[in-house]
């Protein structure tokens, strides 16, 4: 039996084939439109979006002045109760190497790179951003569970990449507030 015989009824079978095909194509288009709509809805309604703004900074002057000078790195309790964390990545470590934050608090992470491309990934969470020299990365985050989290560099930054691991320590809110009373920038380096 040849294909011609099976589909001997030329134009009629062609019509059936075209109809089935159109139906499938319609389903495929609906699936895709639904996905895009879901992403738009989640982005707008739940504000789950990638970083919105592009901010720049000069990596060769980070240590001299501005937001990312050494004395300004670490966690700070803002007047409204939120926390801002500032950090930099360089071959092959983060500063501060251990970030301390309170649990159940809106946190803004602002970070950049002092040399090549790095990345920050906090394991067990969806905190994940690139650090590109020349640009500032900003991530909003909130931890619901106290404890220690590993924070590896997730982008190849040359031969020492595999050794570039930081840490995040999430502590009780009152404990954090007590430690923040003295002012300055908090971290858990050496603890």
């Amino acid at each position, binding site marked *: *039996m040849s*294909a011609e015989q*099976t*589909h001997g009824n*030329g134009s009629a*079978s062609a019509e059936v*084939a075209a109809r*089935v*095909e159109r139906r*499938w*194509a319609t389903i*495929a*288009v609906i*699936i*895709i439109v639904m*996905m895009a709509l879901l*992403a*738009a809805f*989640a*982005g707008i309604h739940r504000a*789950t*979006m*990638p*970083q*919105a*703004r*592009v*901010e*720049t900074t*000069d*990596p*060769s002057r980070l240590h001299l002045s501005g937001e990312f000078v050494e004395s300004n790195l670490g966690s700070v309790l803002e007047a409204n109760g939120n926390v801002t964390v500032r950090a930099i990545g360089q*071959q092959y470590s983060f500063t501060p190497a251990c970030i301390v934050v309170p649990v159940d608090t809106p946190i803004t992470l602002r970070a950049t790179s002092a040399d*090549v*491309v790095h*990345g920050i*990934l906090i*394991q*067990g969470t*969806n905190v*994940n*951003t*690139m*650090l*590109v*020299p*020349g*640009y*500032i*990365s900003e991530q909003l985050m909130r931890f619901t569970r106290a404890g220690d989290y*590993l924070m*590896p560099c*997730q*982008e*190849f930054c*040359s*031969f020492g*990449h*595999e*050794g570039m691991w930081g840490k995040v320590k999430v502590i009780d809110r009152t404990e954090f507030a007590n430690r923040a009373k003295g002012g300055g920038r908090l971290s858990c380096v050496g603890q």
Partner: protein
Amino acid sequence: MLVNRKLILAHFWLAFAVFGLALTLGAWQMFIRSPIGTWLSNPELYYRSLTAHGTVMGYVFPTLVAMSFGYAISESALEQRLVGVRWAWAGFWLIVAGSIMAVIPIALGRASVLYTFYPPLIGNVFYYLGVVLVVVGSWIWVALMSVNLRVWRKAHPGAPVPLAMFANVAGSYLWAWTAVGAALELLLQIIPVAAGLKATIDAGLARVFFSWTLHAIVYFWLMPTYIAYYTIVPRAIGGRVYSDSMARISFILFLVVAMPIGMHHTFADPQVGAGFKFIHSAFTALVALPTLLTVFTICASVEIAARLRGGCGMFGWIRALPWDNPMMLALAFSFVMLGFGGAGGLINMSYQLDASIHNTQWITGHFHLIFGGAIVIMYFAIAYDLWPHLTGRELIDVRLIRTQLWLWFVGMIVTTFPWHWVGILGMPRRMAYFDFGDPAIAPQALSVTLSAIGGFILLASGIMFIVILARGMRAPQVDAGPYRFALAVHQPATVPVALNTHALWVALMIALTLTNYGYPILTLALSEGTSVPAVYVGAQ
């Protein structure tokens, strides 16, 4: 009508030889960073190996397969001697020269920047020049495909271009345009710095340029596989293509929408705003469309074969398929891997979900499953199918071929499934070493060990593949007849101009690239003070 067999065989052999080398490096990398390997005291060796593996598997191997398959298609589908054979050989030798030029600095540890370049890291200038030569060599192929089709059109005015050649030329145009992103990054940004003419570079702009290439290159790798799905598989298993026009629409969609979506690779980047990220995310969803259409058309084509063999029932026909036919086996494995890999891809492209797995081992698992799995297993099938026509000798060891395909499939699943899993646990990519003694990392040890075992299964399968082809060069002679492509159930006598030519779609591809990339690139290129000092690799 395969006349220039030597040319085609040379491309295939070079492709599979470098594939064998890169596969060996890959298996070694899996082993050395797993708990069963001993700690490599010099991590730099790992990154040399990783750069070589990526450069070969990303730029050299699939390009050569596309070229050899493309020449074979041009001669056999158009039934026309290849025009410009001398140019084709020039392209081949450019690729040989470029590969050697790139591999020497890699081997010396002067270019351990990975195949994705990662400026402001800068390696030896000859590494980049080698990559450029490889791309230029492949552009000769692009031009030849276009010229050959034009010559055929002149001789056959108004006739439908055979599907295989239509798709092949679409793939070559896609490659020509998608390579432009990396070419701009190399020529305007990286090479001047590597050559010492400049000392600073805009890393953010470079990442945007590279994303232009990085996603559509995957569709270029995919083209031979999809061409095989549509034009080889139905013929090899005794069926028909369900729909010729749907096939053309799928290839056209790949050409148009594979390009302007690359920024989903930069979702986590600070140099691109949220708006363009969303646009690229939505366009990425669109590129699932040709794949969904293809899955339908190919399943229907396969069903035709099964019913012609007496299969019946809603799903009963599946049993009637020629499962001992290597092409059937390869297609089934390819579809299973495409299914899992595609589902993973929908997660990666998602505006929101990407944050959970960005730059984790999930991504490595994903593209190995899609490229190494779904795509490369069809490269094997293409080679097996073409070999008797190229060598004039029979591939007798069908059982060995089936074992090889099974091993590749099993090896790829064993490698990539645990890889995805540790990615979800947050294991970062491209690490020469993991401290499995750390209680937080220890639970990942088992998965990483499994992946390494999968790597060795793949290596065994790869060696078998090369042995089968080599034995095929000395097998008894046979007249394989002319090389044919599958016919459609309703083979078209005429095809609408839009489905028979590429100009409109190429114009649309370029226009969409400009709308989706023009503004981000211009703003980055014009913004002051974003260039940062280069960091030279291996300079100390």
